[in-house]
């Protein structure tokens, strides 16, 4: 530190030296791959200048201890409009920056400001420490905003990608099913070929359901609820239809059905059929093949319940928390991967989202003695907020 230069507060220094700071930062940014920046110099500087001005302004404001703590945790109050840090993250994502590269820019910004400040001015020890702390908090806040926006956009684009993939798959699948239908209905074809066509048709139908689940998944895992169209419906009847359908497509399996209730409830029959189809399909997939899958309806004064039980391998305790969340399940690599992980398992996620949309709950229990049981509970009457669209 040179003693012959005057002492300058950090906020004043930043505002007076934006040009050399920006130049140092831009020089750094240009060393980051990919070298072909889609942002031009002006745009690049605009975001950085706005961020630095905001931080410099913030440095001049008094700040309570609580505010400081919150900000250091990256939880400053959200502004309605996009901050410069958020806009910057979007531009960086479009330029093909990785999240590491985005973070390294902030590291460079932090070090170039602090280096220039300490090398060109005398820093007053009493106020300097406070300035640096608050400057770091400001940079961290901007960094947190940038990373959050970057992650959100990546997630959105992945969702969009999956949704388009799902819709694209429906075209060729439609052709497969039409072709199978044609052979199934032909009268001049030996029955063994009709049987093969029937299997192609059934597999096609299953694929269609997987695609529908995938599309629902992309729509809901960013927070949107599954839309339901509630009306008076008979749950036992809907269950019986689904059970019959699955008995037909799995003739080698036993599905026990105990319709414990007769009264109507309020719900979306097509969506609840989807729930049941996913639950029983899951039980058929993971249950021991020669043991029955048991479907049981029950009721209390306020609620109706459906339990679907299978006697398959017990779900390990560490995995039971993630049976409803396919993304969490795949986030943890498992070297002892079992058959459970060979399918996406979106079905149970969708089932639970539909139950939640009906103001219901869904849980799972798994042990050696009773096997695995998925249980859902639905209110007999939907809460008023869900009855708005009732037909």
């Amino acid at each position, binding site marked *: 530190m040179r003693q012959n230069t005057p002492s300058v507060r950090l906020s004043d220094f930043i505002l007076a030296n934006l040009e050399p700071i920006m130049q140092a930062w831009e020089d750094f940014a240009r060393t980051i791959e990919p070298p072909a920046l889609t942002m031009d110099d002006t745009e690049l500087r605009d975001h950085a200048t706005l961020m630095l001005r905001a931080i410099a302004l913030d440095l001049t404001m008094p700040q309570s201890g609580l505010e400081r703590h919150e900000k250091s945790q990256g939880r400053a109050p959200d502004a309605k409009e996009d901050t410069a840090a958020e806009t910057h993250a979007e531009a960086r994502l479009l330029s093909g920056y990785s999240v590491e590269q985005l973070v390294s820019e902030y590291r460079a910004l932090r070090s170039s400001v602090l280096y220039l400040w300490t090398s060109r001015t005398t820093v007053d020890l009493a106020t300097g420490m406070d300035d640096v702390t608050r400057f770091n908090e400001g940079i961290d806040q901007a960094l947190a905003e940038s990373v959050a926006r970057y992650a959100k956009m990546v997630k959105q684009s992945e969702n969009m990608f999956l949704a388009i993939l799902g*819709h*694209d*798959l*429906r*075209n*060729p*699948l*439609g*052709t*497969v*099913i*039409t*072709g199978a*239908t*044609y052979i199934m*209905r*032909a009268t001049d074809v030996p029955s063994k070929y009709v049987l093969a066509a029937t299997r192609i048709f059934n597999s*096609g*139908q299953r694929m*269609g359901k997987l695609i529908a689940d995938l*599309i629902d998944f992309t*729509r809901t895992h960013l927070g949107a609820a599954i*839309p339901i169209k509630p009306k008076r419906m008979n749950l036992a009847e809907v269950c019986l239809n689904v059970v019959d359908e699955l008995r037909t497509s799995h003739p080698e399996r036993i599905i026990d059905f105990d319709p414990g209730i007769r009264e109507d409830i309020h719900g979306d029959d097509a969506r609840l059929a989807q729930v049941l189809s996913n639950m029983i399909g899951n039980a058929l997939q993971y249950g021991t093949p020669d043991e029955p899958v048991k479907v049981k309806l029950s009721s209390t004064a306020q609620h109706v319940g459906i339990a679907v039980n299978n006697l398959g391998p017990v779900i390990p305790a560490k995995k039971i928390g993630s049976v409803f969340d396919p993304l969490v399940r795949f986030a943890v690599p498992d070297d002892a991967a079992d058959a459970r992980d060979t399918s996406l398992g979106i079905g149970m996620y969708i089932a639970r989202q539909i139950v939640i949309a009906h103001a219901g709950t869904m849980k799972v229990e798994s042990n050696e003695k009773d096997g695995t049981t998925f249980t859902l509970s639905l209110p007999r009457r939907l809460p008023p907020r869900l009855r708005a669209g009732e037909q």
Partner: protein
Amino acid sequence: MMDLPRLAPRDGAALPSRRVLLVDDNDDARDLMSIVLELHGHRVAMADNGLAGLEKARAFMPDVVFLDLGMPVMDGFETAAALRRIPGLEQVWIIALSGWNDQATLARTRHAGFDYHLTKPANFDIIDNFLYGDWAQLPR
């Protein structure tokens, strides 16, 4: 609301033979569907884009048009609106046949003048039921 309705066939009447126009740029899907429909006794004409579909419609005068939405030259939305303006086809049944069934697409098809919306892969039981059904039961 845009789902194809379940219809009963007319009592005692022979199963009707309908004039069906298929417009889809996916050759496999369109050709196979026409084979199945002809197997069921309907008369079928085909086109691989909306503009060609309008041309066909003028000559063929279909009872029903199955329209894909995303097509080159002229998409399904524009085609549906243009079909309605052809003299004699004001009342033709126009059914969207698409992989998309999200709320935004459904709103667009309704607005473009489609009567119904079928999501691919379409169930032939539903299509048969509609084509063989008694259209007098349908609201216009």
